């Protein structure tokens, strides 16, 4: 173990240590490394002077810039709110028809609506509003609580069966125990016949189904089964079904009942946002019907 041993390749001295054949050179730390250390430590020192950095016993150094992330966020939020204030006030003040007629506002809705809808509605109602099993389509003619702008605004505000104190409330009761199973099948056949679903029942069954319908269903869905938007009772004569119009789905709906849930958005979206969504939905529906 001679300290003076040299590595023949680099000419550097070794440290004289050896472990299982591994030796070490005693090369100086390259100057660049010291420079990088200097620069990175200067960066840290400057940051500590400028920004909140070191804790004391009860407080911390605030930094001479006086920066604080909470204030920064509040400032940025206020700035964005101011930037949007003009057109958002207009959105709240104007009725839907005028917003749709106003090219500037319509352009804002075309730019803002998709992301707002995508982040808040699309998860249930689908990316293009077509709905899915258990979730109503927003682009057909069927509306549980009405499809005019005021009704949509109200549904968005209070939700359906939601936790809002003024929420819309609707329930399809479970007829398990009220009707026999074969009675449920019979009334389901009648309901299917109303919307033209081909099941070829015999006339006696249809008549029995109609009687059961009048006794049990008509109070909400109406004697002509066209529903009632005041109660949120769906029209049963169209071809729109939230939970399915096939025999087994209808049977399950009548047997176990249904209680769909739409969240209330009042706490999460302000009135301007809800109005944008309403207009966006109406535009979506118009586009759909053009296609």
């Amino acid at each position, binding site marked *: 173990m001679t300290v003076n041993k040299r590595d023949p390749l680099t000419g550097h001295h070794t440290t004289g240590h050896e472990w299982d054949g*591994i030796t070490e*050179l005693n090369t100086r730390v390259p100057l660049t*490394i010291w420079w990088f250390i200097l620069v990175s430590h200067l960066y840290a020192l400057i940051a500590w002077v400028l920004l909140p950095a070191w804790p004391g016993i009860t407080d*911390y*150094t605030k930094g001479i810039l006086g920066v604080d992330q909470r204030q920064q966020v509040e400032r940025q939020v206020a700035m964005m709110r101011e*930037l949007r204030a003009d057109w958002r006030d207009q959105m709240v003040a104007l009725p839907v028809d005028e917003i749709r007629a106003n090219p500037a506002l319509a352009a804002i809705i075309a730019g803002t609506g998709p*992301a*707002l809808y995508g982040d808040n509605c699309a998860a249930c109602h689908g990316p293009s509003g077509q709905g899915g099993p258990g979730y109503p389509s927003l682009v057909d003619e069927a509306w549980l609580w009405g499809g005019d702008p005021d009704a949509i605004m109200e549904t968005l505000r209070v939700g359906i069966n939601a936790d809002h104190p003024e929420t819309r409330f609707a329930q399809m009761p479970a007829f398990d125990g009220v009707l026999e199973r074969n009675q449920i099948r019979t009334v389901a056949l009648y309901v299917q016949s109303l919307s033209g679903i081909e099941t070829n029942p015999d006339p006696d069954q249809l008549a029995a189904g109609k009687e059961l319908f009048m006794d049990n269903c008509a109070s909400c869905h109406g004697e002509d089964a066209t529903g009632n938007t005041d109660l949120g009772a769906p029209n049963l004569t169209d071809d729109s079904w939230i939970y399915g119009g096939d025999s087994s789905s209808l049977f399950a709906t009548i047997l176990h009942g249904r209680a769909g849930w739409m969240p209330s958005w009042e706490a999460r979206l302000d009135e301007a946002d809800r109005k944008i969504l309403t207009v966006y939905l109406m535009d979506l529906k118009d586009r759909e019907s053009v296609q």
Partner: protein
Amino acid sequence: MVAKLTFVERQIALLILGIITILGLVMASLGAGDALGVHGFIVLFAGLGLIFAVGGSLYAPEPIEDRSREYYDDPIKIGIVLAMIWAMIGMGVGDWVAWMLAFPDLRFDAAWSSFGRLRPVHTTGIIFGFGGNALIATSMHVMQRTSRARLAGQISPWFVLLGYNLFVILATTGYVMGVTQSKEYAEAEWYADIWLVVVWVVYFVLYIRTLARRNEPHIYVANWYYLAFILVVAMLHIVNNLAVPASFTAAKSYSLFSGVQDAMTQWWYGHNAVAFFLTAGFLGMLYYYLPKRAQRPIYSYRLSILSFWGIVFFYIWVGSHHLHYTALPHWVQTLGVTFSVMLLVPSWASAGNALMTLNGAWHKVRDDATLRFMFVAAVFYGLSTFEGSFMAIRPVNSLSHYTDWTVGHVHAGSMGWVALITFGAIYAAVPLIWRRDDMYSWRLVEWHFWLALAGTVIYIFAMWNSGIVQGLMWRTYNDVGTLQYSFMDTVVAMHPYYIARAIGGLLFLIGAVIGFYNILMTIRAARSEDRLLDHPTDSEACEPAVPVAE
């Protein structure tokens, strides 16, 4: 393996296994109906299986040769095989969940196969299963060789290795049953955590005792790193897992910390798991196998000192950079940023030290895929440690945080650095330990190298693209000041990158499968008579390093 133990040692092993088996029985009966009970049965059967293995050879002839003249390589052999088995599990599950992210139906609608349960199986399988076993095995290899001393114990190395694997089994099987502490990289519940503390303390004592009997005047750099790894991981693990079990008959526990303190403790742990498990431990590996394979002296001893103390000192401060723009006070974030930046230089110094060591051996890097594994690992170490410091800066973090960029960064470290250095170390160690001249097939090592490199590059490029696209889409406002994209738009935009990522992962996995096959074939072809290539004494004197009556 049991044949190398004396009768008394076999009895002690049986006693320990008996205690473990009874513990398993207690867990199984107390925790009946809970995941704890299932884990009780796992412990019970693990204990019983090993009792049969040891008990079956209890009266077999005792070893006649002088054991102190040989290094204790049996636990290392099993450790390397276990590391590769965990690599198959961890990488296999990892690629499965990668495909699942692109095609969610690959979940097959089972609860146990949901992303939230499989993802920790992947991370734990890789970090603790693959990485941990590789660290334990190579640390025993490196410590013995660089100290010229045999491991200080006959049973404790087995206890450490097998006990550790029991922990990983308890952790991963728990996740698929829904057992989790919800702390990233520390998901295992209280009883598994307590067991790991026991195992880890034995590991530390074993390591210190072996070091104490070294026949070298100085402690080699690799051992500094391995010791830092063992010591600090013990500290991190104990503090972050402080929790109160909701009941001693069930798996659920509640953390001792709450709110932002809990988050800070978790990321102090989480980042230093990266630092001391995934960096310090594997730097120990790099510091032995790279100069050994290149047959070159370490470029600079002084640089080793500078980078070791720099890494150890600065790393422990930087965990708060995982919590930028959160409820964590601003001043803690500033400290996290500044220490991350100061950390960069010592980190790069160790990568540079490794690369400069290769001066004079570049022709070997060209010809030898094993050395090339280690070279590329050092490059990826440098790259990802730079990327880490960069991402720790708050404005950069505001773009990168919560995006796939982070995922790409982690995998640049875990695939490019940790896995590649491990494969290099294993390819270097396997022929030595099994007394072979070389691996079964050098062509397969080449295949493994190029598949691993291609997989890593595809993976991280996919995640860079995906992450930056994602981050930019999240923060894009239109000219009236509202968000341009919905979250769903960003998910759609990521789909092609997710497929690319899964392909990259698949290439990496195929490489590892080839590697495992190559290792197994090397083991099969190992000659039965142990050719003594090296032994724990001064090679000239050839005297036993430890008293014969050990």
